[in-house]
């Protein structure tokens, strides 16, 4: 049946990257996460605010590890996170009593909106999901979640990406802004 034959796959995995690329991916992501995590634990530790959420780990893979990908560009990083955060908080506010439904609606709607606005960024799906799953601290932020940690954390990571990714001669970032 044609339906199942589509699952066979048609090609294979692309080639592995070189050691330089691996090294600079490591350096960039170490510095980017170190900065947002440092701000989070050292400055915001006892407050009601955070600077780091799980989806930033995913963004680090893209903006430090796959810097040529359209998914890793600034428009996608900022646009994807912000739109998904808004959508996540909206669905939490209207459907917190049915978290399974809020989760699925938040993630799928974020994906659709990111596609439609050309801001597709995989960690955006996580940002939307985290708005539903919590922690309680995140729930209590309400829409402020969109600014802190989402937009500000993403911006901090973007600055690190711009500064670090352009150091080696073999790399450049970004590919585009708009």
């Amino acid at each position, binding site marked *: 049946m044609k339906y199942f034959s589509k699952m066979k796959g*048609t*090609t*294979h*995995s*692309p*080639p592995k*990257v*070189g050691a*330089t*690329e691996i090294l600079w991916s490591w350096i960039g992501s170490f510095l980017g996460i170190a900065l947002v995590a440092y701000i989070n634990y050292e400055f915001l530790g006892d407050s009601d605010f955070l600077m780091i959420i799980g989806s930033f780990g995913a963004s680090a893979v893209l903006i430090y*590890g*796959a*810097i*040529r*990908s*359209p*998914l890793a560009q600034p428009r996608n990083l900022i646009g994807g996170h912000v739109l998904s955060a808004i959508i996540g908080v909206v669905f939490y506010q209207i459907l917190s009593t049915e978290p399974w439904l809020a989760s699925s609606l938040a993630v799928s709607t974020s994906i659709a909106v990111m596609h439609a606005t050309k801001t597709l960024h995989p960690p955006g799906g996580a940002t939307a999901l985290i708005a539903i799953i919590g922690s309680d601290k995140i729930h209590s932020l309400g829409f402020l979640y969109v600014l802190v940690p989402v937009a500000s954390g993403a911006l901090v990571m973007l600055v690190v990406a711009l500064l670090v990714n352009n150091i080696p001669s*073999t*790399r450049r970032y970004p590919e585009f802004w708009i």
Partner: protein
Amino acid sequence: MKPDSANVCIPVEISEDDIVEAMKAIPGYLDITTGDFKELYQAAFAHAVQRLTETVTVGDVMITNVVSADLHTPLKDVARLMAQKRVSGVPIVDEDGRVVGVVSETDFLSHMAGEGVRSFMEVIASCLTGSQCLAVPIEAMTAEGVMSSPAIVSSAHDSVFAAANTMFEKKINRLPVVGADRRMVGIVSRSDVLRYSLPKAVS
């Protein structure tokens, strides 16, 4: 088997190995599979071929300062003109500037060496074997006497592809380009088409 028309499609046989080797030469992680790249490349290539063959016109590649001769120009002057300007053929125009024929090296040869002789090497072979060598005198003739007529012409709006096709099928090396009134506006030759078709150096 030689194709009898220029309408052949050059297949783009890019292999997955070609793509893998190219990907390895680029330092970053390229977010595309070899299969998708191949598909994209072939579609883009076909698009480019279509664009280049159909949208570039004769007007875009033709030469406008054309070397031409009048109907009644004596042949020796035509020959001298062609030698001086280093062209292998000239369009022949009437008093109103309308293209009425073309004189080429082949026309000279076939009139000087006898009926049916159309190549330089046939003349050389004939001379070397001691038979009659450029025996037929044509000194007194004018362009009108040796020209190929009617001239096969092109228009500035034709695609370069169509012009190349015509040159290929009729086995000629140049096409005078004329307006609606058959007055000459330029000329396009095989070398103009070649120059246009050669890939530009990748910057």
